């Protein structure tokens, strides 16, 4: 256990170092005039001109030496200072807190909703593979997965916000605003996780130890709870861990549709505007989150599966 945590801590440290250095090199290697890019991000297309770019260049001049700037960034990092955005002028940490906070809310909301729907249906389907419910859920899952999230989102807004008037169509600020974007993501997730749970259940239910549990006289429910659930759980948990990462970084489309602030949107903007401190900060925090999530998934599997705890 402590070895597991120690390994992950070391990994976190390495990730911080690699992400910091890599983003630094990559942003400087990108084509285009950095001062012009920053000026465009700051003042918009009506006001970006040579004078604005010159002012930005002058402001960046003390940073001139790239190696010095990288050393400075790493030094500040030790004091948990990520610097200020070159575009908005706000502290990077504040921006990440706001945007990543909203991304996390959305991701967790979606994951929770997907967990309540997907795996239970998958288990039901997996216990009777080939039955009418299995086939129906396969069609439903395929349809939901095939529809792009943008379309699912618009349909949900039309149905629940414009039609029924139950929920706000877009925006953020109240818990009600979370429901539609989370549901949009959850439907796509539930579609796949129900299939993962179904396949896992089918394998478990078809195994020799499952048959043996039945032969020794346990009821269907008891067999499943005692010999099925944990075994089905491991692949489902691992899959959800991967999905959570996808949710946090890859839902720009849904965030934009619902006018929801998010780290994906922020990172895209930061790269376009060459906002180096913001790119570094965001990449760092997301890198660390990967490590944290992997550790969390490992820990959960460790708890579910006693074989992993064996020395």
């Amino acid at each position, binding site marked *: 256990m402590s070895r597991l945590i120690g390994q992950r801590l070391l990994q976190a440290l390495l990730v911080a170092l690699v992400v910091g250095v890599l983003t630094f090199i990559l942003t400087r290697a990108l084509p*285009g*005039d950095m001062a*012009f*890019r920053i*000026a*465009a991000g*700051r*003042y*918009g*297309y*009506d*006001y*970006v*001109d*040579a*004078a*604005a*770019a010159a*002012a*930005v260049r002058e402001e960046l001049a003390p940073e001139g030496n790239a190696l010095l700037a990288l050393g400075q960034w790493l030094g500040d990092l030790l004091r948990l200072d990520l610097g200020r955005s070159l*575009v*908005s*002028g*706000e502290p990077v940490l504040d921006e990440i807190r*706001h945007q990543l906070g909203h991304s996390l809310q959305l991701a967790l909301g979606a994951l929770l909703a997907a967990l309540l729907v997907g795996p239970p249906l998958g288990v039901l389907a997996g216990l009777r593979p080939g039955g009418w419910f299995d086939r129906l859920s396969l069609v439903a899952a395929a349809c939901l997965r095939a529809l792009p999230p943008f379309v699912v989102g*618009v349909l949900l*807004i*039309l149905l629940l*916000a*414009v039609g*029924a*008037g*139950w*929920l*706000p*169509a*877009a*925006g*953020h*600020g*109240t818990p*009600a605003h979370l429901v539609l974007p989370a549901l949009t993501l959850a439907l796509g997730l539930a579609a796949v996780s129900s299939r993962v749970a179904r396949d896992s259940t089918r394998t478990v239910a078809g195994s020799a130890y499952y048959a043996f549990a039945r032969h020794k006289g346990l009821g269907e429910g008891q067999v499943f709870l005692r010999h099925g659930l944990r075994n089905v759980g491991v692949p489902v948990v691992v899959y959800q861990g991967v999905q959570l990462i996808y949710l946090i970084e890859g839902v720009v489309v849904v965030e*934009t*549709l*619902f*006018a929801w*602030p998010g780290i994906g949107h922020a990172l895209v903007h930061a790269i*376009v505007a060459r906002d180096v401190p913001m790119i570094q900060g965001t990449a760092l925090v997301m890198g660390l989150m990967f490590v944290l999530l992997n550790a969390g998934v490992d820990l959960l599997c460790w708890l579910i599966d006693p074989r992993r705890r064996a020395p």
Partner: protein
Amino acid sequence: MRIFRRFGLAACLLAVSLSTVARDGVLDIVAPWEIGGTDPAQAGYVFTRLGIAETLVDVDAEARPIPGLASAWKVSDDQLTWRFTLRDDVRFHDGSVLTAQVAAHALTAARDKPGILQQVPLAGIEAVDDRTLVLRLTEPFSPLLAALAHTSAQILAMAAFEDDGRVSRVIGTGPYRIDIFQPPQRLTAVYHEDYWGEAPAIREIAYLAAGRGETRALLAESGDADIVFTLDPASQARLARNPALSVHSVPIPRTVLLKLNAAHPALNDPRARQALSLAIDRAGIATGLLREPEAVADQLLPPGLGAWHLDGLPTPARDLQRAAALLAELGWEAGPEGMLFRDGEPLRLTLRTFPDRPELPLIATALQDQWRGLGVDLQLAIGNSSEIPAGHQDGSLELALLARNFALIPNPLGTLLQDYGPGGGDWGAMNWSDARLNEILQELRAGADPARASALRQEAAAILHEALPVIPITWYQQTAAVSRALENFSIDPFERSYRLSSMDWAAP
């Protein structure tokens, strides 16, 4: 089963309580423009439009200067000293009092940042006493009042600034005070009790930046938003049929234009630029892409700008034959597959544009197709907006498609001086200059009596129309979908104000 019934009941209650949120007395405004920060140079337009921050000078519906935070002003005979008298009843949102010293501090900070004030030939900004602010110029500058009405010249409280001149908080004087500030997408504001002017009827407002046109349209339809700005063409017709909404549309002084490098061998003759202009199907672009048939631009400056606009010009029509004849005069001959060649070189040009305005790449592809009919091989480079001024500076730019705002300050002279003066401008002419136009712009800059100024503006518009340093394509309409629960809505064509203070809820 009982648990399901209970859950169902709770869901219904939740739904009912949520659906009443829309009619809570808060005016919800949705627009595509993000809040880029706290600095007036970056996001000042958001704060001016919402009535959060104000400027010394305001403008009326015809863009004529009217008193804002300054109640009066006087200019010396040599036009070099402007003396502003400030209102004596103005308090900032933090309770501090507006004095000439505070105004001088805010303007000095604004002048030190890139923006409109850097074009003003300022020699000094000085508070003579608590109520009197003096601006000294090195040479006469007639658009000074319009420059002071620009959003970057907002007067913010002392406490809004850090020691290095950075703005860290928006502390203005407007009728609304920021309550929740969540850049880049959201802010809410409430009535500022100490406001010096008439109290607005609507006391709470909320602003949401939504980048997608579909989202904005759905927010209007669901009733979540009371005012939605900038409707995408596809949604506009649908929203107009919605009985709960009214759709407004007003022409604004912004033009989609082609910037050309007049030093390029293929573009240096006015006849070449004329030919390219003749090969554009503007009606097709306006109707097919923008779904706004009135958007066809027959000249650079749209109507609504007084003498800057030439009346009675014929609607430009596509004329490939004349265009081909003009290019033939310049030695271009049709080669394989109808493409044009001169001395063995194909007529190949690269056009830069950017996607921040989603219609620009669409128009660019339309141009590519329409010019192929003439035999021009147009390559598209869709990138960052800054690549246009950067290309202007290093001379690598050939063509650029852009949307230029002629009311950056509420006087087109400001933009024209930047774009069409000697040497051109980052967003205007490139390697093109006209001695007579320069004289006119300089005379207008120094100040001329109204009749003379009017004649000069007409002459300037005619020169731009004849010489085609840039090729105008379409004009813009600002559109908005507005809830019928709201009264007295109107659009400011200069986009300085949402005019929220004059709106009210309709009687139920």
